[in-house]
């Protein structure tokens, strides 16, 4: 089985090690991994802001780049939903967009739904984990149980968090167009956060935002993308 990794621009720039983790994990599970080098951004920021001309151009080039892939896997729920749900809306009647949509998966979704893997190892034994449900993973992709299952089966203790399914306030451009509201939302997430060792999520954007807020509010906490933790689940903490 061959997977083309779409690292997504935020993970590429801010959580590069999560990309490495995803590659190692997929290889360890017997999957060949390609990284088509022309890839950049899926175009979601432009799409969400209403600049659909720009978004279409980026969608088209992304479709071209991943055209020959057997599967496309992203360590991001939001960008996965962009490719899977919004490309076909943005390019109605475009068959390549539909084809790409059908073979695109968020990482944990791919592991559980396509590979049928539910247990990666026991590398997270006893680790106290707070899981933030990224909104697009949760509500646009319906990815809810997959990450929890993989974390739990690796021995992690998933801590109850009343705001786990609430939006963190990142929202892409929202975070800078309405910074005060965005920060107030992050503060609510942080204020309700349980005593965890690590905070994780599918989405780099949410984590960047929450990590920044935690830092500003003086709450040191390890923040790691799901891909990183899943690799640790397999290989133990390095």
């Amino acid at each position, binding site marked *: 089985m061959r997977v083309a990794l779409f*690292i997504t*621009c935020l*993970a*590429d*720039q*801010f*959580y*590069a090690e999560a*990309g*490495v983790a995803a*590659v*190692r994990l997929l*290889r*360890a599970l017997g999957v060949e991994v390609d*990284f088509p*080098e*022309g*890839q*950049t*951004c899926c175009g979601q920021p*432009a*799409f*969400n*802001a*209403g*600049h*659909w001309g*720009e978004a279409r*151009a*980026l969608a088209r080039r992304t479709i071209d780049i991943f055209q020959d892939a057997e599967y496309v896997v992203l360590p991001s729920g939001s960008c996965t939903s962009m490719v899977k749900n919004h490309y076909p809306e943005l390019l109605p009647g475009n068959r390549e967009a539909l084809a790409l949509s059908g073979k695109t998966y968020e990482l944990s979704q791919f592991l559980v739904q396509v590979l049928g893997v539910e247990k990666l190892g026991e590398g997270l034994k006893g680790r106290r984990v707070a899981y933030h449900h990224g*909104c*697009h993973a*949760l*509500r*646009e992709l319906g990815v809810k149980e997959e990450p929890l299952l993989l974390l739990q089966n690796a021995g992690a203790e998933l801590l109850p968090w009343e705001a786990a399914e*609430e*939006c963190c*306030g*990142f*929202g892409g*451009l*929202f*975070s*800078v*167009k*309405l*910074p*005060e*509201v*965005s920060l*107030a*939302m*992050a503060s*609510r997430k942080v204020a309700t956060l349980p005593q965890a060792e690590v905070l994780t999520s599918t989405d780099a954007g949410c984590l*960047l*935002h929450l990590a*920044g*807020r935690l*830092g*500003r509010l003086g709450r040191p906490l390890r923040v790691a993308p799901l891909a990183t933790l899943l690799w640790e689940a397999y290989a133990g903490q390095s």
Partner: protein
Amino acid sequence: MRVKAKLYPKEAARLLQEKPSVRASVTGATLHFERNRLRAYGEIDAEAWRERARRIKDHVLTHLDHYLELAEKRLRENGVQVHWAEGPEEAHRLLREVVARHGVKRAVKAKSMLTEELGVNPLLESLGVEVYETDLGEYLIQLLGEPPSHIVGPAIHLSLPEIQRLFHDRFGTPLDAAPEALAQVARGVLREAFLTAELGISGANFLVAETGTLAVMENEGNIRLSTSLPRVHVAFVGIEKLLPRFQDLALFLPLTARAATGQRLATFVSLIQGSAQPGEEGPEEVHVVLVDHGRTALLADPEAWEVLRCVRCGACLNACPVYRQTGGHPYGYVYSGPIGAVLDPGLLGLEEAHPLPHASTLCGACQEACPVKIPIPKLLLAWRHRAVEQGLAPTWEKGAMRAFAQVMGSPALYRLFSKALRGLPLPQALQDHLPLLRAWTEGRGPLKPSPRPFHELWREIKEETHGG
């Protein structure tokens, strides 16, 4: 009502800065509503109920002319006087006429968002009529001279101490008076108003075409009183409020209650067929005003027409983490929160309301809560797109998007950008001139890119074999 939707970003920021208690009150109240809704949805086959409600509303909207004419006919047969209004002008004309003919000195009002749209209170006051909002929350904000901040709980932004202070200043109650005591004071004032008012004004949750039934939901009893005690009852009804059959109320009344407050049914529902029969208690005269005020324009909109399904339950406000931070005031119009963000651009025009569709992270919680399945995130995106098409996006954003698309459209430029990002920190003087970057860093600290981007690391792990 004065429209200030264009000021949303500034007003939201100002409120968070200047009145932090609003955030606490609104968050507390909406989370409470939301928990109740989830419990109430959990008790039924919510998906089936919502789907049926959506289909019935779509049926009504795609046959709206037919049902309006049928409703009008039935209402007239029931002895109700039917009026049509484009907006405030016709509504005000009718009220002037009613006030003059019946010598109205006092009016009692049941909470109605449509009457906010139409500016009913200022008009009546200009005619020398004493107007009493009779919903307790609405009465509180009337005393304060504020607009409602929530469709269902108009005063959810007020904390108990603020209300205690208000009653202390107004009625001399102790500053630590219990809510029960304050409610009794309000009850006394408003009871007197109910018993002496000549005119009762209400909106309607639904208007049943088959029977000409006005259905109005509430928990306090003030709507039953407002529509029962005064000689004249005037109901303002948006033309989208129709239901085909009396039976449809058996779905919409409980579904709306579950969505709004988590109740199985509102404590009181008034099902009004007309004026009192001879010898009966009740109003001698009932008027129904069918109001457009932007709704036909929305109906003509190939995408946004779906917002006309809205039953004004407020569930999307309660579910919305953006709304929860500020309540409704910064939105600057009658309808706030997610539904306001997709409805107001339709009712007011995009030019007046274009910042509102951006008051969302597109998290999708609103759509899951909506009892009539309005695809709010999709419509938010559609309005944002139209704003861009109409040149309403700010200049900096257009420039930023063009640059973004250029960089992301070329792997070479993207790699350059990637290098530049690692050249950070930018000189402070330069950062100060990058408002976007500053908007990020002010509350979150400096951006910390990975030492090397993944696309560089890839070259090293490309040939790596299993085991890492």
